[in-house]
């Protein structure tokens, strides 16, 4: 068998590393917000809560193209936020990998919030009360009791969001297009290959890579979650 079969081509390496970069940043950047909104939905009651819940879940039911187009309108060079960001801070988001990360984060956000919210709701609030009587303020008791106890759920949310980001296509291509080395992630490279003659073989290789990466992420989350559960369960 040809040994070059097992080495990545420059195009593959570029698409894979870009995908990991974009998805990684999408998850890391949205995690604090994911925890915040999950906590708001799980533990607080306030006017407009149902509305907030709906807005957070919107990307789950909207066509990703709509999300991508909305981002383009907002963050494009002439966009509502894009213009001041560019003029005042010199930051350009549209048609960059940062834009791809934002698009991925937005689409994956509901999955992350759902998982974390469920985990937070599963934490026994009486333990938080106990922490309070032992001298912990509400914020501290969240970080030393509630969050560690909901770690398996947070992990699940992170992996779910990561996997969703890896597979993000519609919002990304609408918002940041297909720019080699900047926004051409695995799914976009794959799509591009299917559009050209003779692209079948390289497209198949990208499919295999996508499957391996996604599977590795799921496996890692399962192992991590089991380890965390063992730690919590004693």
């Amino acid at each position, binding site marked *: 068998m040809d040994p070059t079969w097992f080495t990545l081509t420059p195009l593959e390496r570029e698409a894979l590393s870009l995908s990991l970069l974009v998805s990684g940043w999408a998850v890391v950047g949205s995690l604090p917000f994911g925890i915040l909104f999950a906590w708001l939905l799980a533990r607080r009651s306030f006017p407009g809560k149902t509305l907030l819940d709906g807005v957070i879940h919107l990307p789950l039911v909207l066509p990703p193209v709509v999300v991508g187009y909305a981002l383009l309108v907002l963050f494009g060079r002439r966009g509502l936020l894009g213009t001041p960001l560019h003029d005042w801070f010199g930051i350009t988001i549209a048609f960059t990998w940062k834009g791809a990360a934002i698009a991925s984060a937005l689409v994956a956000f509901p999955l992350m919030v759902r998982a974390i919210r469920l985990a937070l709701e599963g934490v*026994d609030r*009486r*333990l938080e*009360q*106990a*922490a*309070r*009587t*032992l*001298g*912990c*303020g*509400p914020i501290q008791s969240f970080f030393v*009791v509630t969050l*560690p*106890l909901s770690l398996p759920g947070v992990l699940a949310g992170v992996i779910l969001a990561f996997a969703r980001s890896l597979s993000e296509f519609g919002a990304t291509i609408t918002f940041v297009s297909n720019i080699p080395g900047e926004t051409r992630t695995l799914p976009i490279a794959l799509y591009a290959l299917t559009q050209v003659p003779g692209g079948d073989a390289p497209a198949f290789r990208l499919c295999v890579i996508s499957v391996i990466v996604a599977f590795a992420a799921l496996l890692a989350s399962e192992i991590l979650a089991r380890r965390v559960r063992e*730690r*919590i*369960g*004693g």
Partner: protein
Amino acid sequence: MLEIDVYRRQGAFALDISLSAGSGVTALFGRSGSGKTSLVNMVAGLAKPDRGRIAIDDRVLFDPAAGIDLPPEARRVGYVFQEHRLFPHLSVRQNLCFGRDRLREAERTVSFDHVVAVLGIEPLLDRRPAGLSGGEKQRVAIGRALLAAPRLLLMDEPLASLDGGRKNELLPFIAGLSRQFTIPILYVSHSMDEVLRLADTLALIEAGRLVVIGSVEEILSSPNYASLTGHGEAGAVISATLAETDSRYGISHLRFPGGVLKVTQIDRPFGTPVRVRIHARDVALALHVPPGLISVRNQIPAVVRSIAPFDDSQIDVMLDCGGAPLWSRITSEAQAELALEPGQAVTALIKSLTITRGDVSDRGNGQTGALPG
């Protein structure tokens, strides 16, 4: 001194309680749903009264009139819950130090080693709560609360979730806590056995109100509260210490303010403080006892305090034996013959056999150190 004066309305239920608790163990006793747990939650800051005031010594915890409502973490009130509520993701050692680590160095007045030794939890330190037995978990929970050096310790039926054996293992330890760590304890219970063995002061709570607060002996010996304390037959409770045991006859001597009470043998060290319950029906009265002619071992001089009819055929006679209460229930016919009246000197006759192990509550306080077993 803990001072509570709280009011809170919750639907049809209103909690309206005002009481002070000093050093030692104060038991809050009442049926479930009477408001005991709500009351301790208010002291801990986990529930908020509609109005009122809560203070420990000069330190005000809650006084909306003065704009004070300290959050739980600022109250320095320890809480041992009915369920252990240990943190499952932390080791026993980390659980124990949870509150302590949040204190300033100067406030860490309770020694870790002392608590661990007294509770006998040294072998458990590196384990996780999930691997502990119910009794062990509750001991760790007590240690965790103590190590936060609280000014007051709340215990909400800490033994309720344990079986009889585990209860007996923990009771002597809790009895000694208040003295060993010089901390007042507010102890919620609906078990009179626990009250007899642990409490110095008893507060009876019913339907959100304080019925009475006073010494355990005083309240349990009074006919007024017999229905609330629900402690079997009418009778008096007196404090005594084990003076000697005569194993030839299987008899123990208990010293109490009214003299010496001979009871069936108790296998405890001399000097053990106990509470003895003496049923009113087991106490006979005599105006004059001919010496050497009667089998009854306890012939205790007493003065009649009051006389009240129990029903048509029975009369309750309250007695004073050198300060200790005694309660005798006699037939109306006997009263017709003896014509007892308040202030009269009589002799109370109590058969030793009528006072059995079940009537004697050990108040031993585990000061010898680690728990047995």
